[in-house]
């Protein structure tokens, strides 16, 4: 019920904005063993929007992101990326849809057996017909855009946490995705480095063309990046709207969560 109401709200928002939905979850439920992680979750992310998924640890935020890129399949419900139902795709079709999406993992998840530059070039080598020199040149550009222009030949193990995150972002942007999924961008980083990552994401959003879906429990980060916020609790959506709407929510948990890091 709550999921349907939230879906109706987000559909209205999408129509009002005159944009198509980049991502849509339709009554998605997921359990791992006996533990229900998502419970009838429905929402829509308008194209070009900065969409932030909030919630305490273990409430299903990262699992939601993994549904969007097809790393996890729902037990019930459907997941759409633009007009493609990614939750029903496999093989080449799944690969085609995934090429529209970039994913910045919480741990960056760089391939540690190849250099930072080759990490960025990896998807280009596999999914484009570009010449090797062009791929290397573009990979250098992507790294330079995140402030790692001189780190092309370094191995991931030689980078600091913040640098790994930046390199992960450059890799996620390698194919110029329409949708960028970001899992806990500030996790494990000092406040200054976390702000720098936020700035990069904000720059991407403001440059247009990229739909940004960010999972975080960092409220200052959510305020900066989110046009729309959604809060999950125990696998269910308990609030959705703008920052101001969530701050004025009737739900005390939502209000407490939104003000908990106000100064941060």
């Amino acid at each position: 019920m709550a999921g349907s109401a939230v879906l109706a709200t987000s559909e209205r928002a999408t129509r009002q904005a005159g944009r198509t939905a980049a991502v849509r979850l339709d009554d998605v439920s997921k359990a791992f063993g006996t533990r229900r992680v998502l419970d009838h979750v429905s929402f829509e992310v308008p194209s070009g929007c900065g969409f932030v998924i909030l919630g305490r640890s273990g409430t299903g935020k990262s699992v939601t992101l993994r549904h969007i890129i097809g790393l996890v399949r729902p037990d019930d419900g459907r997941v759409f990326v633009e007009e493609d139902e990614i939750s029903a795709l496999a093989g080449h079709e799944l690969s085609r849809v995934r090429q529209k999406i970039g994913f910045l993992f919480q741990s960056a998840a760089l391939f540690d057996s190849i250099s930072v530059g080759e990490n960025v070039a990896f998807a280009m080598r596999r999914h484009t017909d570009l010449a090797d020199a062009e791929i290397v040149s573009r990979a250098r550009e992507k790294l330079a855009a995140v402030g790692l222009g001189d780190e092309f030949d370094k191995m991931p193990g030689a980078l600091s946490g913040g640098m790994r995150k930046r390199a992960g972002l450059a890799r996620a942007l390698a194919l110029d995705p329409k949708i960028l999924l970001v899992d806990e961008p500030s996790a494990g980083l000092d406040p200054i480095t976390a702000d720098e990552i936020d700035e990069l994401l904000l720059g991407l959003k403001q440059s247009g063309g990229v739909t940004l879906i960010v999972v975080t429990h960092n409220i200052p980060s959510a305020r900066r990046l989110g046009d729309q916020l959604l809060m999950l609790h125990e696998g269910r959506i308990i609030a959705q709207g703008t920052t101001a709407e969530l701050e004025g929510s009737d739900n005390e948990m939502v209000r407490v969560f939104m003000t908990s890091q106000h100064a941060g």
Partner: protein
Amino acid sequence: MLDRAQAGLAAVGDVSIFAMKAAREMFVPPFEFRETLRQLYELGFRSAPLIAVSGLAVGVVLSMHTRASLERFGAESLIPSGLAIALVRETGPLTAALLLSGRIGAGIGAELGAMRVTEQIDALEASAVDAFRYLVVTRVIACVIALPILTTIMNFSGMLGGFIAETAVNGMPLRLYFTRAFSLIDFTDYVPATLKTMVFGFIIATVSSYLGFTTESGTEGVGRASTRAVVLSSMVIIISNVVLVRLIFFLFPEAGG
């Protein structure tokens, strides 16, 4: 007890499905040539020194045992051919496979396990790459190609070890030793026994990849995957060898003579 038995049976089923998927996808394009070549180098070429040195030692020991047995009957001239037959038919293939299940199995289990727990396998999938084809199928193909070649290296270095032992005892020349060594070996001794190591390679790669691919519980899980990869692949190799030898005797009756 019943739960453990059920879990064990479920695991056997899962490994079998994993192996069948790998066997099918080995022949389905597109092929990952570059990564397969890289794995051939890592798993095959870099195992060659281990196999060559071990083969030498095995050859020396086999020669000493063969001499001890044949001397009693005054049949020392049969030492080179006896050793060659023992090496080519069974000792070479099985020793090579068990050594490689240690080196390759542990390596694959640990590498894929670490990739699983650090989300690198998810990152591959997120990069629109079929992680199973890229990580598993390439390793399976590399092992299936590498094992017969490494077994051949083992056989030859074993014979060389046998020569060193013989020439140390009675000064036998190299040419005479190898002429005698090859005098009783024919096609049915070498080819079926060496080709069966393709099955051993398939077992090492699929069992180890399965354990790495399904690793849970962080670094502790990686260690467990690595250990289990060696134990399970060695065990499956030894058991499957019984069936394979029986099959070889059935298909090539002269190999049992």
